[in-house]
């Protein structure tokens, strides 16, 4: 016996570095997982006082023979039905390492729980009943281990007592499971004959399996390796949040791979913006001067103010991930409703959340019987390869290059419904962002504002079609220009005729339309102009995006003319067409306009003249610091 066990996990008071290995036990229902775990804990003396007696009493009360699995099947329902419903974890230690054993249910209905357990594992024990042999669920679990990236699998052939410890039966099963796993690219680290109930092959090689020369289960566990260090890979720091609790603007996240230190030149993907790490912040002591590696949750500040948001990935400039709107992924599906071609889904890749469409389904199979194939939908508990089109670009790696950022999950109605690995990232025809180095203007902001007598701004007019946005925008443009300013009109329709003529009117395309308008307007504002945007922009979320992009330069004006007046005006005849059914996805007739909740200004054009309204906008621009107040100017001249 080579196991030293304590009921709690080993203390590491001096920060010792015993490797911790997480091992999941999987297999077909009733093949003996919980029994093996119970046996392992018992043989190694790791049960707390009184537990064995309690289990015996529980069994007796139910009039059943003693059952090891009661140890882990803690839930009343589990004991009543004799099955493991949910995954659980238990710890012990061997001579060389600490082990976290993850017990995962085998019942097909609870596959999501098996995956929940197995996704956290460095290695696996796959258990097979010697009498029943390899079953669908055995194959399914083998496949899922492979899909989850668990490469080290020890196979245990249990209940050898039921087949009279026959070495022939053992060989039969060994050959079958080896063939299956090898087909998936997984080589079993060991195949071990045991009787979990009696203890043969668990911690000791007994005479009954005298013909077997390989390791015991305990020895096999001792040979599994801890997870591969991720520090050697390229830096990936997905942004979880930006904190402004004090004068610092801290970008927070966990380093998934690679390492960083203050002074590093980094690129923020997918936008491709370049900056330097100014400091690595921490608490209670800050800043941190030492290099920070994979696994650390860190906070960094940058040497310049850039627009960064949750889900962006920070990388080193020469090893950045690719930016894409198209992915191919191998996924498993857990939801009741099959995943079908054309489905709208939510994809999560680290903290990044993207709306997406399934554009193709290939190779949908039931991993229990790998022959059956179809390509219209992926059923519950099945696996498949899919092509995904994302509504916004993301930064991603194929899992072969980075196991951490090469993973994704799919959410349906707020609940994780599937997940898988990124097989390839199609960068398409887009420029390689790492080669893009933004060029700063030759002019300073104060040079421009001295000439125009205003700061750069994005004045965003939103409202129903025919509410008067363009009329107001033009009046404002004329007024600012007369006063020596530099206004520029960006009309939604005008830009759709050129820059945005590749976009339609789906929700995703509308979002992209607004994003581009906001980017152009923000560029103008940064260069001292007042960009006046007139666009229906019905979605609150899209306007929030625009506000994030333009940041402090953003001024929102809700042109809140009543709907019936807008329809009465109808200068472009759109309402008439929409009523006749000839204009699909026209905002105004439906109820899809989301009113702003906190616009800087609300104007009802049915209640005032254009001149009055322009006055009001001018006043707002003065009070919010865009237009310079005359008094301040006078003071400056004295």
């Amino acid at each position, binding site marked *: 016996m080579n196991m030293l066990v*304590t*009921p*709690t*996990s*080993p*203390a*590491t*008071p001096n*920060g*010792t*570095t*015993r490797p*911790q290995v997480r091992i999941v036990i999987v297999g077909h229902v009733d093949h003996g997982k919980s029994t093996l775990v119970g046996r392992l804990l018992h043989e190694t003396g790791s*049960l*707390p*006082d009184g537990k064995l007696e309690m289990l015996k009493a*529980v069994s007796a009360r139910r009039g059943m023979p003693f059952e090891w699995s009661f140890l882990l099947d*803690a*839930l*009343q*329902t589990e004991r009543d039905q004799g099955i493991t419903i949910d*995954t*659980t*974890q238990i*710890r012990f230690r061997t001579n060389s390492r600490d082990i976290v054993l993850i017990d995962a249910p085998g019942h097909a209905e609870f596959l999501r*729980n098996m*995956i*929940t357990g*197995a*996704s*956290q594992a460095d290695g696996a024990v796959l258990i097979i009943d010697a009498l029943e042999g390899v079953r669908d669920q055995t194959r399914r679990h083998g496949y899922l281990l492979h899909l*989850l990236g668990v490469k080290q699998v020890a196979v245990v052939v249990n209940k050898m007592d039921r087949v009279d410890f026959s070495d022939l039966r053992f060989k039969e099963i060994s050959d079958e499971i080896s063939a299956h796993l090898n087909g998936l690219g997984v080589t079993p680290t060991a195949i071990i004959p045991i009787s979990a109930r009696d203890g043969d092959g668990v911690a000791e090689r007994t005479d009954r399996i005298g013909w077997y020369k390989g390791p015991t289960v305990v020895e096999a566990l001792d040979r599994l390796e801890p997870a591969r260090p991720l520090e050697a890979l390229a830096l990936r720091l997905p942004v*979880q*949040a930006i*904190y402004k*609790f*004090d004068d*610092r603007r*801290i970008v*927070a996240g*966990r380093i998934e791979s690679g390492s960083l230190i203050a002074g590093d030149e980094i690129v923020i993907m997918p936008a491709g913006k370049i900056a330097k790490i100014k400091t690595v*912040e*921490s*608490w*209670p002591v*800050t800043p941190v001067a030492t290099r920070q*590696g994979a*696994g*650390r*949750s860190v*906070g960094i500040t940058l040497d310049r103010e850039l627009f960064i948001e949750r889900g962006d990935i920070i990388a080193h400039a020469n090893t950045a991930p690719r930016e894409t709107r198209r992915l191919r992924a191998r996924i498993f599906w*857990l939801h009741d409703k099959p995943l079908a071609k054309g489905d709208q889904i939510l994809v*999560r890749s680290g*903290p990044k959340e993207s709306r997406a469409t399934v554009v193709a389904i290939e190779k949908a199979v039931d991993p229990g019987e790998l022959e059956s194939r179809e390509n219209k939908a992926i059923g519950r508990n099945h696996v498949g390869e899919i092509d995904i089109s994302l509504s916004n670009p993301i930064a991603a790696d194929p899992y072969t290059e980075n196991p951490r950022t090469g*993973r994704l*999950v799919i959410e349906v109605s*707020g*609940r*994780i419904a599937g*997940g898988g690995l990124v097989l390839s990232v199609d960068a398409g025809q887009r420029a390689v962002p790492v080669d893009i180095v933004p060029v700063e203007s030759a002019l300073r902001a104060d040079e421009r504002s001295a000439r125009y007598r205003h700061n750069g701004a994005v004045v965003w007019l939103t409202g129903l079609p025919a509410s008067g946005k363009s009329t107001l925008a033009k009046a404002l443009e004329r007024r600012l220009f007369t006063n020596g300013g530099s206004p520029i009109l960006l009309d939604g329709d005008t830009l759709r005729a050129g820059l945005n003529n590749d976009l339609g009117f789906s929700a995703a395309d509308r979002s992209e339309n607004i994003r581009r308008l906001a980017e152009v307007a923000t560029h103008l504002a940064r260069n001292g102009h007042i960009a006046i945007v007139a666009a229906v922009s019905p979605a609150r979320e899209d306007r929030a995006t625009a506000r994030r992009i333009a940041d402090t330069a953003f001024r929102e004006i809700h042109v809140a003319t009543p709907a019936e007046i807008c329809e009465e005006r109808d200068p472009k005849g759109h309402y008439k067409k929409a009523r006749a059914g000839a204009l699909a996805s026209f905002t105004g007739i439906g109820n899809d306009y989301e009113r702003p909740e906190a616009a800087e200004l609300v104007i009802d054009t049915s209640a005032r003249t254009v001149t009055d309204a322009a006055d009001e906008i001018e006043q707002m621009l003065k009070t919010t610091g865009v237009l310079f107040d005359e008094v301040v100017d006078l003071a400056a001249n004295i």
Partner: protein
Amino acid sequence: MDHLDQLEAQSIYIFREAFARLKKIALLWSLGKDSNVMIWLARKAFFGRLPFPALHVDTGKKFPEMYRFRDHYGKEWELDLRVEPCPPIDAVDPTLPPAARSAARKTEGLKMALAKYGFDGLIAGIRRDEEATRAKERVFSPRGLEGNWDVRDQPPEFWDHFNASPPQGAHLRIHPILHWTEADIWAYTKRENIPIIPLYLAKDGKRYRSLGDQDITNPVASTATNIDEILAELEQTKVPERAGRALDHETEDAFERLRVAGYL
């Protein structure tokens, strides 16, 4: 990165996810060793502050040392501390055994606090190694409208992707130290020099391993008068951590019933 660094980084990750993805969260502060470590970790995650309230659901039956600790560190750590009372014992399910019934007051107090503030997330300091039903918990664990836990329908959770959309009116329990052990808590408390309530240290041959209400918590035999001795004791002992908690042992499923109903 050593073992404690890894635990710390993972907890910080969970804290930041909860703060980013939920609208209105609070941390349940029971004043014990686990929730003190939890507050410390939150301050690491948010660079010295707790950007949401600390909620103490108070049965009124804690030890005086615990109240003193709360009042002192609530101020020193600049917590937005909300102390919420529990309903009297007759308001609680009479079919529960006595100690469990007493503890269930806390579940009710918790529900009242939830209704009062409308939190959509509650951060709780439970650990998998404490107790068998907790071992089956998710990091982001959805609770029903009544605060109940549906163990038969827990959402899948893998690769640190958590389900963070509670149904309307319901809430999530977030468990940032689920992966820690009792020994980890002590080793980290020592390393970071986190203050503790003296009841955890042995006096007259006894100490508390787990602190609850005065009337249903008992000390265990121990000679450990400092954290190093506690760690040495944990290496040897076969007594489970919650042995001193009466409510765990009254009937086979007393604790499970409590947890399904919304208890921590």
